[in-house]
Protein backbone atom coordinates (compact mmCIF):
# COMPACT_ATOMS: atom_id res chain seq x y z
CA UNK A 1 0.00 0.00 0.00
CA UNK A 2 1.47 3.29 -1.14
CA UNK A 3 1.87 6.30 1.09
CA UNK A 4 0.16 9.38 -0.25
CA UNK A 5 1.75 12.82 -0.12
CA UNK A 6 0.54 16.25 -1.01
CA UNK A 7 3.06 17.53 -3.53
CA UNK A 8 1.43 20.74 -4.64
CA UNK A 9 -1.28 23.11 -3.45
CA UNK A 10 -3.04 26.21 -4.75
CA UNK A 11 -6.23 28.15 -4.23
CA UNK A 12 -8.02 31.12 -5.73
CA UNK A 13 -9.42 33.98 -3.72
CA UNK A 14 -13.06 33.21 -2.99
CA UNK A 15 -15.75 35.65 -4.00
CA UNK A 16 -17.50 36.60 -7.19
CA UNK A 17 -15.70 35.56 -10.32
CA UNK A 18 -18.10 36.77 -12.96
CA UNK A 19 -15.37 36.82 -15.60
CA UNK A 20 -14.33 33.18 -15.55
CA UNK A 21 -15.98 29.99 -16.70
CA UNK A 22 -15.83 27.16 -14.16
CA UNK A 23 -13.45 25.07 -16.25
CA UNK A 24 -11.08 28.02 -16.76
CA UNK A 25 -11.11 28.92 -13.09
CA UNK A 26 -10.34 25.32 -12.15
CA UNK A 27 -7.66 24.98 -14.83
CA UNK A 28 -5.82 28.09 -13.62
CA UNK A 29 -5.68 26.87 -10.05
CA UNK A 30 -4.75 23.34 -11.06
CA UNK A 31 -1.92 24.77 -13.15
CA UNK A 32 -0.67 26.64 -10.08
CA UNK A 33 -0.76 23.48 -7.97
CA UNK A 34 1.11 21.57 -10.68
CA UNK A 35 3.73 24.30 -10.78
CA UNK A 36 4.00 24.17 -7.00
CA UNK A 37 4.58 20.42 -7.26
CA UNK A 38 7.31 20.87 -9.85
CA UNK A 39 5.15 19.76 -12.77
CA UNK A 40 4.98 16.02 -12.18
CA UNK A 41 3.10 14.08 -14.83
CA UNK A 42 -0.42 13.55 -13.52
CA UNK A 43 -2.30 10.54 -14.79
CA UNK A 44 -5.71 11.39 -13.45
CA UNK A 45 -7.78 14.36 -12.38
CA UNK A 46 -10.50 14.19 -9.75
CA UNK A 47 -12.91 17.10 -9.89
CA UNK A 48 -15.09 18.10 -6.96
CA UNK A 49 -18.06 20.24 -7.87
CA UNK A 50 -21.54 20.62 -6.42
CA UNK A 51 -23.00 23.22 -8.78
CA UNK A 52 -21.43 22.52 -12.19
CA UNK A 53 -24.43 20.58 -13.40
CA UNK A 54 -27.22 22.69 -12.01
CA UNK A 55 -25.75 26.20 -12.16
CA UNK A 56 -23.48 25.93 -15.19
CA UNK A 57 -25.26 23.07 -16.95
CA UNK A 58 -21.97 21.26 -17.44
CA UNK A 59 -21.49 17.56 -16.91
CA UNK A 60 -18.17 15.76 -17.07
CA UNK A 61 -16.40 18.91 -15.97
CA UNK A 62 -13.05 17.11 -15.64
CA UNK A 63 -12.82 16.57 -19.38
CA UNK A 64 -13.25 20.29 -20.03
CA UNK A 65 -10.74 21.32 -17.38
CA UNK A 66 -8.28 18.90 -18.99
CA UNK A 67 -8.98 20.57 -22.35
CA UNK A 68 -8.12 24.01 -21.03
CA UNK A 69 -4.68 22.69 -20.00
CA UNK A 70 -4.15 20.24 -22.84
CA UNK A 71 -3.96 17.34 -20.38
CA UNK A 72 -4.74 14.85 -23.11
CA UNK A 73 -5.19 11.14 -22.33
CA UNK A 74 -5.32 11.47 -18.56
CA UNK A 75 -8.24 9.99 -16.67
CA UNK A 76 -10.85 12.45 -15.42
CA UNK A 77 -13.56 11.82 -12.86
CA UNK A 78 -16.10 14.14 -11.32
CA UNK A 79 -17.03 13.27 -7.76
CA UNK A 80 -20.16 14.77 -6.22
CA UNK A 81 -21.34 14.58 -2.65
CA UNK A 82 -23.09 17.97 -2.62
CA UNK A 83 -21.11 20.45 -0.49
CA UNK A 84 -19.00 17.52 0.71
CA UNK A 85 -17.73 16.83 -2.80
CA UNK A 86 -14.27 18.15 -1.95
CA UNK A 87 -13.60 15.56 0.73
CA UNK A 88 -15.09 12.80 -1.42
CA UNK A 89 -12.87 13.70 -4.39
CA UNK A 90 -9.80 13.83 -2.16
CA UNK A 91 -10.65 10.37 -0.82
CA UNK A 92 -11.19 8.91 -4.27
CA UNK A 93 -7.93 10.46 -5.46
CA UNK A 94 -5.96 9.26 -2.43
CA UNK A 95 -7.29 5.74 -2.88
CA UNK A 96 -6.33 5.91 -6.56
CA UNK A 97 -2.73 6.70 -5.64
CA UNK A 98 -2.71 4.07 -2.87
CA UNK A 99 -3.97 1.53 -5.38
CA UNK A 100 -0.72 1.87 -7.28
CA UNK A 101 -2.53 2.65 -10.52
CA UNK A 102 -1.29 6.22 -10.64
CA UNK A 103 1.87 7.86 -9.36
CA UNK A 104 0.46 11.36 -9.29
CA UNK A 105 -3.05 12.71 -9.59
CA UNK A 106 -4.61 16.14 -9.46
CA UNK A 107 -7.62 17.08 -7.38
CA UNK A 108 -9.43 20.29 -8.15
CA UNK A 109 -12.52 21.62 -6.45
CA UNK A 110 -14.48 24.31 -8.23
CA UNK A 111 -17.89 25.88 -7.86
CA UNK A 112 -19.43 29.09 -9.08
CA UNK A 113 -22.66 29.53 -7.12
CA UNK A 114 -22.68 33.20 -8.12
CA UNK A 115 -23.38 32.14 -11.68
CA UNK A 116 -27.01 31.99 -10.55
CA UNK A 117 -29.30 34.22 -8.49
CA UNK A 118 -29.52 33.78 -4.74
CA UNK A 119 -32.92 32.06 -4.82
CA UNK A 120 -31.57 29.65 -7.38
CA UNK A 121 -28.64 29.02 -5.05
CA UNK A 122 -31.21 27.95 -2.45
CA UNK A 123 -32.84 25.69 -5.05
CA UNK A 124 -29.54 24.01 -5.79
CA UNK A 125 -28.47 23.79 -2.17
CA UNK A 126 -31.80 22.13 -1.36
CA UNK A 127 -31.06 19.30 -3.77
CA UNK A 128 -28.76 17.96 -1.05
CA UNK A 129 -31.87 17.22 1.01
CA UNK A 130 -34.15 14.28 0.20
CA UNK A 131 -35.88 15.31 -3.04
CA UNK A 132 -39.10 13.47 -2.22
CA UNK A 133 -39.53 13.79 1.54
CA UNK A 134 -37.78 17.08 2.28
CA UNK A 135 -37.11 19.35 -0.69
CA UNK A 136 -40.61 18.83 -2.07
CA UNK A 137 -42.05 20.57 0.98
CA UNK A 138 -39.68 23.54 0.86
CA UNK A 139 -37.28 22.16 3.43
CA UNK A 140 -33.73 23.48 3.08
CA UNK A 141 -30.47 22.66 4.85
CA UNK A 142 -30.89 25.94 6.74
CA UNK A 143 -34.19 24.79 8.25
CA UNK A 144 -32.66 21.51 9.34
CA UNK A 145 -29.61 23.28 10.79
CA UNK A 146 -31.94 25.63 12.65
CA UNK A 147 -33.86 22.78 14.25
CA UNK A 148 -30.59 21.17 15.32
CA UNK A 149 -29.39 24.47 16.75
CA UNK A 150 -32.57 24.90 18.76
CA UNK A 151 -32.30 21.40 20.20
CA UNK A 152 -28.58 21.78 20.95
CA UNK A 153 -28.96 25.14 22.66
CA UNK A 154 -31.89 23.91 24.76
CA UNK A 155 -30.26 20.61 25.73
CA UNK A 156 -27.02 22.16 26.94
CA UNK A 157 -28.66 25.30 28.33
CA UNK A 158 -26.92 27.78 26.11
CA UNK A 159 -28.34 31.07 24.90
CA UNK A 160 -28.19 32.18 21.30
CA UNK A 161 -25.55 34.72 22.37
CA UNK A 162 -23.29 31.77 23.11
CA UNK A 163 -23.70 30.37 19.60
CA UNK A 164 -22.92 33.85 18.26
CA UNK A 165 -19.37 33.37 19.52
CA UNK A 166 -18.75 30.98 16.63
CA UNK A 167 -19.25 33.53 13.83
CA UNK A 168 -17.32 36.10 15.85
CA UNK A 169 -14.36 33.70 16.03
CA UNK A 170 -14.69 32.89 12.34
CA UNK A 171 -14.61 36.56 11.36
CA UNK A 172 -11.62 37.09 13.61
CA UNK A 173 -9.78 34.20 11.95
CA UNK A 174 -10.83 35.10 8.44
CA UNK A 175 -9.76 38.72 8.80
CA UNK A 176 -6.15 37.66 8.34
CA UNK A 177 -6.82 35.26 5.44
CA UNK A 178 -6.38 37.14 2.16
CA UNK A 179 -8.14 34.32 0.28
CA UNK A 180 -11.31 34.79 2.35
CA UNK A 181 -14.57 36.29 1.14
CA UNK A 182 -15.48 38.17 4.34
CA UNK A 183 -12.33 39.70 5.74
CA UNK A 184 -13.64 41.90 8.50
CA UNK A 185 -13.99 41.32 12.20
CA UNK A 186 -17.46 41.06 13.71
CA UNK A 187 -18.80 41.68 17.19
CA UNK A 188 -21.47 39.70 19.02
CA UNK A 189 -23.82 42.64 18.48
CA UNK A 190 -23.32 42.41 14.71
CA UNK A 191 -24.41 38.80 14.87
CA UNK A 192 -27.40 39.51 17.12
CA UNK A 193 -28.57 42.36 14.93
CA UNK A 194 -28.29 40.48 11.65
CA UNK A 195 -31.46 39.29 10.00
CA UNK A 196 -33.08 35.99 10.91
CA UNK A 197 -32.65 33.29 8.29
CA UNK A 198 -34.29 30.42 10.13
CA UNK A 199 -34.65 31.00 13.83
CA UNK A 200 -32.50 30.88 15.87
CA UNK A 201 -30.00 31.15 13.01
CA UNK A 202 -29.22 34.59 11.63
CA UNK A 203 -27.33 35.80 8.59
CA UNK A 204 -24.06 35.61 10.51
CA UNK A 205 -24.65 31.93 11.20
CA UNK A 206 -24.69 31.13 7.48
CA UNK A 207 -21.62 30.68 5.33
CA UNK A 208 -22.14 32.94 2.31
CA UNK A 209 -21.90 31.13 -1.00
CA UNK A 210 -18.79 32.12 -2.89
CA UNK A 211 -17.14 31.18 -6.15
CA UNK A 212 -13.86 29.40 -5.68
CA UNK A 213 -11.37 26.85 -6.89
CA UNK A 214 -8.59 25.03 -5.06
CA UNK A 215 -6.27 22.23 -6.11
CA UNK A 216 -3.84 19.73 -4.70
CA UNK A 217 -1.48 17.29 -6.36
CA UNK A 218 -1.26 13.90 -4.66
CA UNK A 219 1.70 11.61 -5.33
CA UNK A 220 3.27 8.46 -4.00
CA UNK A 221 6.52 10.34 -3.44
CA UNK A 222 7.46 12.63 -0.58
CA UNK A 223 5.89 16.05 -0.66
CA UNK A 224 4.98 18.93 1.60
CA UNK A 225 2.59 16.91 3.75
CA UNK A 226 1.59 13.32 4.20
CA UNK A 227 -1.87 11.85 4.36
CA UNK A 228 -1.81 9.98 7.66
CA UNK A 229 -5.43 8.91 7.90
CA UNK A 230 -8.70 9.28 6.04
CA UNK A 231 -12.23 7.98 6.23
CA UNK A 232 -15.64 8.74 4.78
CA UNK A 233 -18.85 7.89 6.59
CA UNK A 234 -22.51 8.30 5.74
CA UNK A 235 -25.31 8.75 8.23
CA UNK A 236 -28.07 6.68 6.67
CA UNK A 237 -30.62 7.89 9.22
CA UNK A 238 -33.18 10.26 7.68
CA UNK A 239 -33.25 13.70 9.29
CA UNK A 240 -36.78 13.20 10.58
CA UNK A 241 -35.86 10.04 12.47
CA UNK A 242 -32.55 10.95 14.07
CA UNK A 243 -32.30 9.71 17.65
CA UNK A 244 -30.19 12.77 18.46
CA UNK A 245 -30.02 16.19 16.87
CA UNK A 246 -27.03 17.46 18.80
CA UNK A 247 -24.38 15.32 17.16
CA UNK A 248 -22.97 14.83 13.66
CA UNK A 249 -22.93 11.06 13.32
CA UNK A 250 -21.11 11.08 9.99
CA UNK A 251 -18.35 13.34 11.28
CA UNK A 252 -17.93 11.41 14.50
CA UNK A 253 -17.54 8.06 12.74
CA UNK A 254 -15.24 9.44 10.02
CA UNK A 255 -13.06 11.13 12.65
CA UNK A 256 -12.78 8.02 14.81
CA UNK A 257 -11.72 5.90 11.85
CA UNK A 258 -9.32 8.48 10.40
CA UNK A 259 -7.70 9.10 13.79
CA UNK A 260 -7.30 5.35 14.33
CA UNK A 261 -5.68 4.98 10.92
CA UNK A 262 -3.32 7.86 11.67
CA UNK A 263 -2.68 6.64 15.21
CA UNK A 264 -3.55 10.01 16.75
CA UNK A 265 -5.90 11.40 19.36
CA UNK A 266 -7.69 14.75 19.30
CA UNK A 267 -4.91 16.14 21.49
CA UNK A 268 -2.47 15.77 18.60
CA UNK A 269 -4.51 18.06 16.36
CA UNK A 270 -2.73 21.39 15.90
CA UNK A 271 -5.28 22.75 13.45
CA UNK A 272 -8.64 21.68 12.08
CA UNK A 273 -10.80 22.99 9.27
CA UNK A 274 -14.43 21.93 9.70
CA UNK A 275 -17.55 22.30 7.57
CA UNK A 276 -19.47 25.11 9.29
CA UNK A 277 -21.97 25.87 6.54
CA UNK A 278 -24.08 26.92 9.53
CA UNK A 279 -22.48 27.93 12.81
CA UNK A 280 -24.19 25.06 14.63
CA UNK A 281 -22.40 22.62 12.32
CA UNK A 282 -19.06 24.17 13.18
CA UNK A 283 -19.82 23.58 16.84
CA UNK A 284 -21.03 20.02 16.31
CA UNK A 285 -18.16 19.18 13.94
CA UNK A 286 -15.55 20.43 16.38
CA UNK A 287 -17.17 18.25 19.06
CA UNK A 288 -17.33 15.26 16.69
CA UNK A 289 -13.61 15.70 16.04
CA UNK A 290 -13.02 15.54 19.78
CA UNK A 291 -11.81 19.13 20.07
CA UNK A 292 -14.34 19.63 22.89
CA UNK A 293 -16.59 17.24 24.79
CA UNK A 294 -20.15 16.78 23.56
CA UNK A 295 -22.12 19.88 24.39
CA UNK A 296 -18.95 21.57 25.57
CA UNK A 297 -17.68 23.59 22.66
CA UNK A 298 -19.62 26.76 23.36
CA UNK A 299 -18.56 26.56 27.03
CA UNK A 300 -14.96 26.40 25.82
CA UNK A 301 -15.52 29.43 23.59
CA UNK A 302 -17.13 31.31 26.47
CA UNK A 303 -14.20 30.56 28.70
CA UNK A 304 -11.88 32.02 26.10
CA UNK A 305 -10.17 28.77 25.09
CA UNK A 306 -7.73 29.21 22.21
CA UNK A 307 -9.34 26.83 19.71
CA UNK A 308 -7.31 26.07 16.61
CA UNK A 309 -10.34 25.47 14.46
CA UNK A 310 -11.08 27.11 11.14
CA UNK A 311 -8.09 29.41 11.22
CA UNK A 312 -9.05 30.18 7.60
CA UNK A 313 -12.28 31.72 8.84
CA UNK A 314 -14.28 28.65 7.86
CA UNK A 315 -17.28 28.70 5.59
CA UNK A 316 -18.53 31.83 7.32
CA UNK A 317 -15.56 33.99 6.49
CA UNK A 318 -13.57 32.17 3.79
CA UNK A 319 -16.96 31.52 2.16
CA UNK A 320 -19.00 28.44 1.37
CA UNK A 321 -17.33 27.39 -1.85
CA UNK A 322 -19.67 24.40 -2.03
CA UNK A 323 -18.00 21.36 -3.58
CA UNK A 324 -14.63 23.10 -3.60
CA UNK A 325 -14.70 23.51 0.18
CA UNK A 326 -12.94 20.27 1.12
CA UNK A 327 -10.08 21.03 -1.24
CA UNK A 328 -9.71 24.56 0.19
CA UNK A 329 -9.62 23.03 3.65
CA UNK A 330 -6.85 20.63 2.68
CA UNK A 331 -4.78 23.45 1.19
CA UNK A 332 -5.37 25.64 4.24
CA UNK A 333 -4.35 22.92 6.68
CA UNK A 334 -1.15 22.20 4.74
CA UNK A 335 -0.26 25.90 4.62
CA UNK A 336 -0.98 26.28 8.34
CA UNK A 337 1.25 23.30 9.16
CA UNK A 338 4.01 24.66 6.93
CA UNK A 339 3.55 28.24 8.00
CA UNK A 340 3.34 29.15 4.36
CA UNK A 341 2.69 32.84 3.91
CA UNK A 342 0.21 34.40 4.49
CA UNK A 343 -0.70 31.69 6.97
CA UNK A 344 0.94 31.55 10.36
CA UNK A 345 2.60 28.31 11.35
CA UNK A 346 0.61 26.41 13.94
CA UNK A 347 2.16 24.83 17.00
CA UNK A 348 2.27 21.20 15.95
CA UNK A 349 2.62 18.97 12.94
CA UNK A 350 -0.80 17.41 12.54
CA UNK A 351 -3.92 18.93 11.04
CA UNK A 352 -7.40 17.68 10.28
CA UNK A 353 -9.90 18.38 7.52
CA UNK A 354 -13.63 17.75 7.93
CA UNK A 355 -15.68 17.93 4.73
CA UNK A 356 -19.44 17.33 4.90
CA UNK A 357 -22.20 16.91 2.34
CA UNK A 358 -25.72 17.95 3.29
CA UNK A 359 -26.97 17.96 6.85
CA UNK A 360 -24.85 15.22 8.43
CA UNK A 361 -25.30 12.94 5.42
CA UNK A 362 -21.70 12.19 4.39
CA UNK A 363 -18.50 13.32 6.09
CA UNK A 364 -14.89 12.81 5.10
CA UNK A 365 -12.15 13.35 7.67
CA UNK A 366 -8.51 13.49 6.65
CA UNK A 367 -5.47 13.67 8.92
CA UNK A 368 -2.50 15.47 7.43
CA UNK A 369 1.01 15.59 8.85
CA UNK A 370 4.26 17.25 7.97
Amino acid at each position, binding site marked *: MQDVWINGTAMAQTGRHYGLNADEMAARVLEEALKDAGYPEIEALFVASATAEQADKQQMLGAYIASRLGLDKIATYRVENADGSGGAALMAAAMAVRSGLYNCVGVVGVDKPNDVLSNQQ*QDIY*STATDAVYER*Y*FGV*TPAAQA*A*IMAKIYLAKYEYKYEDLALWPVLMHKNGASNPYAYMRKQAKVEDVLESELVSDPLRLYDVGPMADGAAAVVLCNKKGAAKLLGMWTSTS*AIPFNNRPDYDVLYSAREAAERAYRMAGITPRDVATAEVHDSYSIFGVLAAEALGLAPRGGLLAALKSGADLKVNLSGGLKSRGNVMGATGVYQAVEVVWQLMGKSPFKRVDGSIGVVHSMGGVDKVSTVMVLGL
Partner: protein
Amino acid sequence: MEHESVPLYWRNIPAYYRLVAKRCKKCGEVYYPPVVKCTKCGSAELEDYQLPHEGELVEFTVLRSVPTDFLKQKPLVIGLVKLGPVKVLGQIVDAMPEKLKPGQRMEVVFRRVVVDGKYGLVMYGYKFRPRP
Protein backbone atom coordinates in the same frame (compact mmCIF):
# COMPACT_ATOMS: atom_id res chain seq x y z
CA MET B 1 -36.51 25.45 -9.52
CA GLU B 2 -38.73 23.75 -11.97
CA HIS B 3 -40.66 20.85 -10.56
CA GLU B 4 -40.23 19.21 -13.91
CA SER B 5 -40.82 15.62 -13.05
CA VAL B 6 -44.48 14.70 -13.11
CA PRO B 7 -43.74 10.98 -12.61
CA LEU B 8 -41.76 11.83 -9.50
CA TYR B 9 -44.74 13.66 -8.01
CA TRP B 10 -47.25 11.10 -9.16
CA ARG B 11 -45.52 8.07 -7.72
CA ASN B 12 -45.19 9.66 -4.32
CA ILE B 13 -48.85 10.59 -4.00
CA PRO B 14 -49.58 7.77 -1.50
CA ALA B 15 -47.03 9.27 0.84
CA TYR B 16 -47.97 12.88 0.12
CA TYR B 17 -51.75 12.39 0.39
CA ARG B 18 -52.10 9.62 2.89
CA LEU B 19 -48.82 9.53 4.83
CA VAL B 20 -48.27 5.87 4.07
CA ALA B 21 -45.14 4.45 5.67
CA LYS B 22 -43.74 0.90 5.68
CA ARG B 23 -43.82 -1.57 8.58
CA CYS B 24 -41.71 -4.67 8.87
CA LYS B 25 -43.97 -7.70 9.06
CA LYS B 26 -41.39 -9.55 11.11
CA CYS B 27 -40.24 -7.12 13.77
CA GLY B 28 -42.83 -4.35 13.48
CA GLU B 29 -40.37 -1.50 12.90
CA VAL B 30 -41.95 1.41 11.00
CA TYR B 31 -40.12 3.41 8.35
CA TYR B 32 -40.81 6.82 6.92
CA PRO B 33 -39.39 7.41 4.35
CA PRO B 34 -39.97 3.79 3.39
CA VAL B 35 -37.06 1.37 3.13
CA VAL B 36 -36.44 -1.48 0.72
CA LYS B 37 -35.49 -3.82 3.53
CA CYS B 38 -35.94 -3.68 7.29
CA THR B 39 -32.79 -2.09 8.58
CA LYS B 40 -33.37 -3.57 12.02
CA CYS B 41 -33.96 -7.26 11.36
CA GLY B 42 -33.09 -7.52 7.66
CA SER B 43 -36.47 -8.81 6.52
CA ALA B 44 -37.66 -7.75 3.07
CA GLU B 45 -41.29 -8.27 3.99
CA LEU B 46 -42.68 -4.83 4.46
CA GLU B 47 -46.29 -3.71 4.42
CA ASP B 48 -47.96 -0.36 4.00
CA TYR B 49 -48.55 1.34 7.30
CA GLN B 50 -50.87 4.28 7.75
CA LEU B 51 -49.31 6.87 10.02
CA PRO B 52 -51.65 8.45 12.58
CA HIS B 53 -52.87 11.93 11.72
CA GLU B 54 -52.30 13.33 15.15
CA GLY B 55 -49.10 13.77 17.04
CA GLU B 56 -46.80 16.01 18.96
CA LEU B 57 -44.52 18.86 17.93
CA VAL B 58 -40.86 18.06 18.52
CA GLU B 59 -39.27 21.27 17.25
CA PHE B 60 -39.77 23.88 14.54
CA THR B 61 -38.23 26.88 12.83
CA VAL B 62 -39.42 29.81 10.76
CA LEU B 63 -37.56 29.65 7.46
CA ARG B 64 -37.22 33.05 5.77
CA SER B 65 -34.81 32.24 2.95
CA VAL B 66 -36.72 29.86 0.71
CA PRO B 67 -36.34 28.14 -2.65
CA THR B 68 -37.85 29.81 -5.73
CA ASP B 69 -41.09 27.84 -5.73
CA PHE B 70 -41.90 28.99 -2.22
CA LEU B 71 -41.19 32.69 -2.55
CA LYS B 72 -44.87 33.60 -2.43
CA GLN B 73 -45.43 31.53 0.70
CA LYS B 74 -42.48 32.98 2.58
CA PRO B 75 -41.76 32.53 5.44
CA LEU B 76 -42.28 28.79 5.83
CA VAL B 77 -42.72 27.26 9.24
CA ILE B 78 -40.88 23.93 9.15
CA GLY B 79 -41.66 21.51 11.93
CA LEU B 80 -40.69 18.08 13.12
CA VAL B 81 -43.76 16.23 14.36
CA LYS B 82 -43.94 12.87 16.13
CA LEU B 83 -46.66 10.75 14.51
CA GLY B 84 -46.92 7.44 16.31
CA PRO B 85 -43.73 5.42 15.86
CA VAL B 86 -41.91 7.94 13.65
CA LYS B 87 -41.23 11.62 13.29
CA VAL B 88 -42.11 13.52 10.11
CA LEU B 89 -40.64 16.79 8.82
CA GLY B 90 -42.92 19.21 7.01
CA GLN B 91 -44.62 22.57 6.90
CA ILE B 92 -46.73 23.91 9.73
CA VAL B 93 -49.73 26.04 8.72
CA ASP B 94 -52.56 27.92 10.42
CA ALA B 95 -50.34 28.79 13.33
CA MET B 96 -48.68 31.82 14.82
CA PRO B 97 -45.06 30.74 15.22
CA GLU B 98 -44.65 32.70 18.43
CA LYS B 99 -47.35 30.54 20.01
CA LEU B 100 -45.94 27.19 18.91
CA LYS B 101 -44.06 25.15 21.43
CA PRO B 102 -42.45 21.71 21.54
CA GLY B 103 -44.74 19.08 23.02
CA GLN B 104 -47.99 20.56 21.78
CA ARG B 105 -50.57 18.47 19.94
CA MET B 106 -50.56 18.68 16.15
CA GLU B 107 -52.72 17.26 13.40
CA VAL B 108 -52.21 16.48 9.75
CA VAL B 109 -53.98 18.52 7.06
CA PHE B 110 -53.78 18.31 3.29
CA ARG B 111 -52.88 21.37 1.37
CA ARG B 112 -51.48 22.70 -1.83
CA VAL B 113 -47.70 22.52 -1.59
CA VAL B 114 -46.51 24.15 -4.75
CA VAL B 115 -47.80 25.41 -8.08
CA ASP B 116 -45.43 24.65 -10.92
CA GLY B 117 -45.04 27.84 -12.89
CA LYS B 118 -44.24 26.23 -16.19
CA TYR B 119 -46.94 23.61 -16.54
CA GLY B 120 -49.48 24.99 -14.08
CA LEU B 121 -49.44 21.68 -12.26
CA VAL B 122 -50.73 22.02 -8.72
CA MET B 123 -49.07 19.65 -6.29
CA TYR B 124 -50.49 18.73 -2.92
CA GLY B 125 -49.32 17.09 0.25
CA TYR B 126 -49.55 16.85 3.99
CA LYS B 127 -48.87 19.75 6.31
CA PHE B 128 -49.30 20.11 10.05
CA ARG B 129 -51.32 22.47 12.20
CA PRO B 130 -51.88 22.87 15.91
CA ARG B 131 -54.81 20.81 17.13
CA PRO B 132 -57.59 23.11 18.11
